């Protein structure tokens, strides 16, 4: 069982289907998840300055709760949450000063025991590509996918260690499992402009447009990402483009769900799995808002 940490962005944008698709997908593949109680925002940025301890608190609290829940680890969907949680955890494992200070605030002695997973990692390591391949009902023929990683899933490589940070092939491998072809293109691991979209939209747009243009020139028919903010930026930057030059942007769950028969079918399968085994409901959103 994994403790699911939704994070504010994913929960606030529930309507875009990312959360529903991801949870249905996992449940249909026999991965049990349970939403973490009383979670709070991870802070969206990792406190880079080493003497900033307050920024660690909410994340450590969630990590500690996951540990207390006795689950296999913490599941994150949003790459910012993953980034922050994984790095905070990495630091708590090694930095005795941080353990002492944070422990002082929270009254615990957390030392990075929890394992933090990203959805992609769960699919790769806990489910495995063969299992996914078996589950494919409609192979994705004819799609040329551009898989865009952005920065949060990749760097710093020593702390995140999710994929080869310079030449990641994880989403490609997944898409190829579904029968799609993938393209390689420049700026695949560059920043999309991130939070600058909030106050300096043109700046973010310029960065994202570079990604879109490169992907299109490499022949992509679609671009996928695992990050809500990347998705937003990649879409927003195309507003000025004529319709025919636009490149559809999707969460990486979308093609997965499509190839596996649609979200309703998956939820049905998940429900049946639930009947058979663990009663914990996979996608309960009632714990926190």
């Amino acid at each position, binding site marked *: 069982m994994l403790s699911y940490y939704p994070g504010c962005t994913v929960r606030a944008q529930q309507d875009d289907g990312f959360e529903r698709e991801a949870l249905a997908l996992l449940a249909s593949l026999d991965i049990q998840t349970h939403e973490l109680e009383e979670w709070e925002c991870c802070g969206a940025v990792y406190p880079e300055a*080493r003497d900033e301890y307050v920024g660690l608190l909410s994340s450590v609290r969630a990590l500690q709760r996951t540990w207390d829940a006795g689950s296999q680890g913490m599941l994150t969907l949003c790459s910012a949450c993953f980034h922050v949680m994984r790095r905070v955890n990495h630091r708590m494992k090694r930095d005795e000063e941080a353990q002492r200070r944070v422990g002082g605030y929270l009254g615990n002695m957390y030392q990075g025991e929890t394992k933090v997973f990203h959805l992609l990692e769960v699919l790769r390591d806990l489910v495995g590509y063969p299992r996914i391949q078996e589950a494919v009902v409609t192979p994705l023929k004819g799609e040329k996918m551009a898989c865009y990683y952005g920065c949060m899933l990749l760097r710093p490589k020593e702390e995140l260690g999710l994929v080869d940070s310079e030449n990641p092939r994880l989403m490609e491998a997944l898409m190829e499992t579904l029968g799609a072809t993938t393209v390689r293109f420049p700026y695949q691991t560059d920043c999309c402009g991130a939070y600058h979209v909030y106050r300096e939209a043109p700046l973010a747009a310029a960065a994202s447009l570079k990604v879109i243009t490169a992907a299109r020139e490499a022949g992509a028919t679609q671009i996928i990402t695992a990050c809500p903010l990347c998705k937003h930026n990649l879409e927003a930057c195309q507003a000025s483009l004529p319709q025919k030059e636009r490149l559809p942007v999707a969460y990486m769950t979308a093609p997965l769900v499509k190839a596996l028969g649609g979200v309703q079918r998956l939820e049905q399968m998940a429900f049946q799995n639930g009947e058979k085994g663990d009663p914990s409901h996979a996608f309960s959103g009632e714990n926190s808002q």
Partner: protein
Amino acid sequence: MRFPEKTASNSQREDVKHMTGKEVKDCYQCMKCSAGCPMASHMDRLPHEMMQLAKLGLLEEVYASKSLWICASCMACSSRCPRDLEPASVMESFRVTLLRETPNREETCDGDLTVPRQAMIASMRKHRR
């Protein structure tokens, strides 16, 4: 430009070292940070210039630079720096120092409220609004 009579004191440099665990003096200006920076075209001072200014102790110019607020902490520079100096963390430490030294910051929500929350929160955290 003529060097000012006084450059940053050792204690100020120590502060940077304390916050980042890195020694900016070790930078040998290979400019790899600027080569890969996705925000470079929007910066008034490029990452390697910021490192050089920090190294020379011209901290006033560092603090006056818009680049501090343009850096999106994507860590591309940090992960590729051959001297292991993490320019992104150095930038952050300057940002934090500046924010700590301006105690009465106005709290505003002046951005585009339709963007994902992650962006809003990150922006606010970076700028402490």
